[in-house]
């Protein structure tokens, strides 16, 4: 049989679709559309997700961390560096309260020469004003204080106006200097997770330091955030971090919360699996019983002297054309959908609609799977067709 005639017969059969074939066609269109959507819209989804993530923070943050010894070096690098995308630099040093103290259970005061990252907001009492003022945690509930024999640090909110005697130790843990401080205010330590941290004025700190030289015990090896840079958008983060890293600055960029993106990816994979399974079941069912539905015409072809391989060719082409129709319709519907989305949705959602792509490859793979199944089942059916009596003609 000539290919042209095969296709003509196939086209003819498209004009007269049985209900079963119509339902099959609609199901295939839906499946193909569902295959197109997750692939086509994935980049949109992930863009949307990224926008959502980015909107969680107004800016992307880059933290510059190091020990207190790194502070001056970082500062000079930052002063030299000009980058328009850096919106704001948060210097985690504060002019007044540069120093803070770590107080142990005996009120031993360990110097922390490094700069600490925040000015605690005083929730009770006053800010630091006078030389020997000190701000303490509201509730010193930290484990460090639980077994205190010195209970003055418990319930410090009640201690406002009272005094606390701090012992400054040297590196051999010997008492070098002792000073009485007035508790002027407390802050919410829960908020800062700094239950044993008290704050004194910068000047007082310097004075104590200079009076006792560097004999006081220092605690400067802890790595902390020194600066935080606020960058206008995600795209510019890399350039800046690269520059800083090249200048021996330790940088960390808090990871974006990309759970949403992962969920979308997972969801689309899940949908794909379900789709593939259901559609293969549908296809197998369809092709398995195909020759029964086509009994009349198969018997007719046989009666007219068509060989089995001719009959198989005819049916094969018919099915290929039918599914090709589904393919075209689903692509057209997809493009239509894309136009709708582009026209209406982008007024509400700020992601890049242009990223909706028609990903033909998965659809093409699906089409190949169908053709393969079609062929395999026809090969199986050929035995059925061979043994099928044409005599039933009279009964049909």
């Amino acid at each position: 049989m000539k290919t042209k005639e095969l296709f003509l017969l196939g086209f003819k059969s498209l004009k007269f679709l049985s209900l079963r074939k119509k339902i099959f066609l609609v199901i295939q269109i839906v499946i193909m559309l569902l295959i197109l959507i997750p692939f086509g819209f994935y980049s949109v989804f992930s863009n949307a997700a990224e926008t959502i993530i980015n909107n969680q923070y107004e800016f992307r943050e880059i933290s510059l961390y190091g020990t207190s010894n790194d502070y001056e070096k970082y500062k000079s690098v930052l002063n030299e560096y000009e980058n328009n995308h850096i919106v704001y630099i948060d210097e985690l040093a504060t002019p007044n309260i540069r120093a803070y103290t770590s107080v142990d259970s005996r009120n031993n005061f360990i110097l922390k020469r490094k700069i600490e990252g925040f000015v605690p907001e005083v929730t009770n009492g006053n800010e630091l004003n006078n030389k020997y003022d000190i701000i303490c945690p509201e509730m010193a509930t930290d484990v460090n204080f639980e077994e205190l024999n010195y209970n003055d640090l418990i319930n410090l909110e009640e201690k406002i106006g009272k005094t606390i005697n701090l012992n400054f130790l040297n590196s051999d843990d010997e008492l070098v200097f002792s000073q009485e401080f007035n508790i002027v205010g407390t802050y919410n330590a829960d908020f800062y997770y700094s239950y044993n941290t008290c704050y004194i004025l910068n000047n007082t700190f310097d004075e104590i330091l200079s009076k006792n030289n560097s004999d006081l015990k220092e605690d400067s090896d802890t790595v902390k955030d020194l600066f935080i840079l606020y960058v206008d958008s995600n795209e510019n983060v890399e350039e800046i971090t690269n520059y800083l890293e090249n200048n021996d600055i330790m940088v960390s960029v808090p990871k974006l919360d990309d759970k949403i993106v992962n969920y979308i990816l997972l969801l689309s994979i899940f949908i794909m699996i379900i789709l593939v399974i259901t559609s293969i079941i549908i296809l197998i069912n369809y092709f398995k019983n195909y020759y029964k539905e086509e009994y009349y015409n198969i018997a007719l072809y046989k009666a007219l002297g068509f060989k089995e391989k001719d009959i198989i060719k005819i049916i094969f082409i018919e099915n290929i054309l039918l599914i090709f129709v589904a393919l075209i319709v689903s692509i057209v519907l997809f493009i239509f959908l894309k136009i709708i989305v582009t026209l209406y949705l982008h007024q509400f959602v700020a992601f890049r609609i242009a990223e909706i792509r028609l990903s033909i490859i998965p659809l093409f793979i699906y089409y190949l799977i169908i053709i393969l199944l079609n062929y395999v089942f026809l090969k199986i059916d050929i035995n059925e067709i061979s043994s099928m009596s044409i005599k039933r003609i009279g009964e049909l």
Partner: protein
Amino acid sequence: MKMEDIVKTYISKNGNQVKALNNINYNFKKGKFYAIMGQSGSGKTTLINILGLVDVPTRGKYFFNGLEVQKLSNDKLSEIRNNEIGFVFQHFYLNNRLTALENVLLPTLINKKHTKEEIIEKAKKLFNNLGLESRMNHYPNELSGGEQQRVSLIRALINEPSVILADEPTGNLDYNNELEILKLLKEVSKEKCVIVVSHNPNIKKYADIVLNLDKGVLNEN
């Protein structure tokens, strides 16, 4: 076409055996017009189906042009069906997705005897002969039973087979049309073997040999 001790037994759904054909021995010859007559259920369709290689006998031997049919491959049988046999089925048996003309051309798709133009020319002539020229591009469900039957006859003739088998070809026709068809078959039978199944006594006037089928037993009249 020679039949030797042909028996066809059907086993119905409730297990009963129906002997549709009982020991048929007959030799059908070229150039003759055979009429097979008999009551309904006497086995006429069964017989003509076996003759047309559309059904197989339960027992016995059937020779087509000297070839023992049971020993032929499926492809060879298909070839014979297409080249040598023109079958007019009792229920016309047209493809509802194709027009009358396309139905007629169907057997020629796998036959390389003639060019497409020749075939279409011939088909048109046959449609004309049978008064169907205006119905060529109609679909079967747009045609009357008689028209469908004539289309089925044209399809049987299109490949110029050596044997024409017709199962009640005049069953749905008025007198004039019936006459046309019988004349045509008579004409054709000069160089072919024509076997027509019919209830209709008119056929006796045209047939060379009238065969009677009674409860599966074939007798020459």
